[in-house]
């Protein structure tokens, strides 16, 4: 009796349906293709939120399912953004250079064009030479391949070293923080080849595309929704079968899995690299919508926020991670946007831009202490009503007597 994958995982169907409705609804209300009820900048915010949901799914896979609290996944997210940003910036600057040289009396040589692009891009850091890392910047295909390869390779090397030495728990979390901090500090340097703390900018402009931002923003919104949908299906497929069984086993009792004969390190490495690749793809879609990427994006705090989203949403279930990332990051945008009126509390002015951080921190502590299942746990309340969970210790003398779960209600 083989039932279809979707029948066995109804939550995937529901999730995809909600995502599709959301995408269509937003499109209908957008500036670019609908009645204009939603501004282009908010379309970009929603598109970015979908990318954050995708990296939250990756975080749930590595933390909620495999039990590895990685506090460095934004390093992979940022690297994905840098890889696509290099091509966007190079090609756009090339367009500008060619336009400005078009009126020159003698047509510029290929080398002159490249030199002019270099001067334009690296002028801010006092250089005009292309560093080695920009070797493939003129090729979209290669840079897109690097979106996957660079985070994947970094995760492979880092994970191999860490897992092979059996670094676990809080020590691994600290190592991942060190990794993302080291990357941020490296990128901050002017001679890192990625424009130091200026970062890459103007990424919202697609080279060779004359469509207005209202339309381009929709393209990226759709692409982000598609990536989230595919990433969600991939993640739920990975955790649904025996592989999911094994990684949850690793989370709960690593030594036992090892004595069953499973190479625990290889499993951890596999999940670590897979989630790094997902994070890289999410980043590559995020930063063209943000328009700018700089080293502050891969600062340690970003990865800690990621853990907070997943914890608040509910780890160990994929939709929980998505809900957490969407909910917290959208509220965050709202509070820190300066739109929320300040409150006078007994003569003290509460400015939400600053106090939001306190609320976020408090809610993280409260959720961890009192609702470890997070927002996703609310779903259990509903499904528990519909079909009571009869798995539980018998209360009565016979089978069929009230069970623990029911008796508690």
């Amino acid at each position, binding site marked *: 009796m083989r039932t279809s994958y979707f029948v066995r995982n109804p939550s995937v169907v529901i999730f995809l349906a909600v995502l599709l409705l959301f995408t269509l609804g937003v499109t209908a209300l957008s500036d670019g293709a609908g009645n204009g009820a939603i501004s282009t900048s908010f379309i970009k915010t929603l598109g970015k939120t979908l990318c954050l949901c995708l990296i939250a799914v990756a975080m749930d896979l590595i933390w909620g399912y495999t039990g590895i609290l990685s506090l460095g996944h934004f390093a992979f997210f940022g690297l994905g953004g840098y890889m696509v940003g290099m091509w966007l910036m190079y090609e756009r600057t090339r367009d500008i250079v060619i336009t400005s040289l078009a009126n020159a009396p003698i047509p510029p040589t290929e080398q002159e064009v490249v030199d002019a692009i270099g001067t334009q891009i690296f002028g801010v850091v006092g250089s005009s030479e292309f560093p080695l890392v920009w070797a493939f910047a003129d090729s979209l295909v290669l840079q897109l391949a690097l979106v996957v390869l660079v985070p994947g390779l970094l995760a492979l090397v880092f994970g191999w070293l860490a897992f092979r030495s059996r670094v676990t728990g809080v020590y691994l979390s600290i190592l991942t923080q060190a990794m993302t901090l080291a990357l941020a500090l490296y990128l901050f340097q002017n001679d890192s080849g990625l424009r130091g703390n200026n970062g890459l900018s103007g990424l919202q402009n697609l080279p060779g595309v004359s469509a207005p931002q209202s339309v381009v923003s929709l393209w990226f919104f759709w692409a982000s929704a598609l990536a989230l949908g595919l990433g969600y299906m991939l993640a739920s497929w990975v955790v649904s079968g025996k592989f999911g069984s094994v990684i949850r086993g690793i989370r*709960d009792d690593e030594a036992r899995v090892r004595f069953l004969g499973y*190479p625990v390190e290889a499993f951890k490495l*596999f999940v670590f690299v897979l989630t790094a690749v997902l994070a890289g793809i999410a980043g590559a879609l995020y930063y063209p919508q943000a328009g700018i990427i700089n080293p502050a994006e891969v600062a340690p705090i970003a990865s800690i926020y990621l853990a907070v989203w997943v914890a608040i949403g509910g780890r160990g279930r994929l939709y929980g991670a998505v809900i957490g990332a969407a909910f917290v990051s959208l509220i965050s945008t709202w509070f820190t946007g300066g739109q929320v009126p300040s409150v006078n509390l007994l003569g003290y002015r509460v400015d939400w831009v600053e106090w939001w951080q306190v609320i976020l921190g408090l809610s993280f502590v409260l959720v961890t202490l009192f609702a470890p299942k997070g927002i996703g746990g609310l779903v259990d309340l509903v499904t528990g009503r519909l079909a009571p969970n009869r798995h539980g210790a018998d209360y009565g003398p016979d089978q069929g007597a009230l069970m623990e779960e029911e008796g508690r209600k």
Partner: protein
Amino acid sequence: MSTLLEVSGVSVTFDGFRAINNLSFQIGPAEMRAIIGPNGAGKTTFMDIVTGKTRPDEGRVLWGEKSQSLTRMSEAKIAQAGIGRKFQRPTVFEDQSVFDNLAMALRKPRGPLAVLWYRPARADAERVHELAAEIGLSDQLSRKSGELSHGQKQWLEIGMLLAQEPRLLLVDEPAAGMTHEEREHTTALLVEAAKTRAVVVVEHDMEFVRRLNCKVTVLHEGAVLAEGSLDHVTANQQVIDVYLGR
């Protein structure tokens, strides 16, 4: 008689404390053996060495017909080679169903990619049902294993060991905390298993050891003190002094 596992001259020291001192031990391919000894005699350390959790400072641990050395192999490789281990505390995956626990232990390729593409065949489900019947958990397959009683968890773990189809079973205090009937069931399971493979049982409970009716090895201060039938070793004056007399 051929040997399946040969441990010879093994020593291991933790921070100056000699947990295992020049220990030698052999077991054949279809044999039951009980290991007894006072606390700190090195019983658990012995299991750690065989399963690869602890590396010995010196000595050899040889496995199978090809006399493969286990001292350089990882825990997972040793388990794949055919050594299964049951811990003292029942360690099953409490968050997962009895079925999933058994399915995870089935002897199948263990690499990440093989596991990712693995889809349960009908034969695998049948094997899980067979095992469940053997350990008496047929009607509990869909329950979360965390909800099982202590004794049922112990059996589930023994079932998981059998699912691995190991050639050597290392069992640490299987009867601890069990009721009288539960012990009898456990004894029957182990005796049945020992017909086709080697079983090493570490146990404190003399009555349980007597019921297993097998050769006994007495450990003391990390070395073998006596070996033979239970009556033989319990008559040994040294054994009485260090262990039974207390």
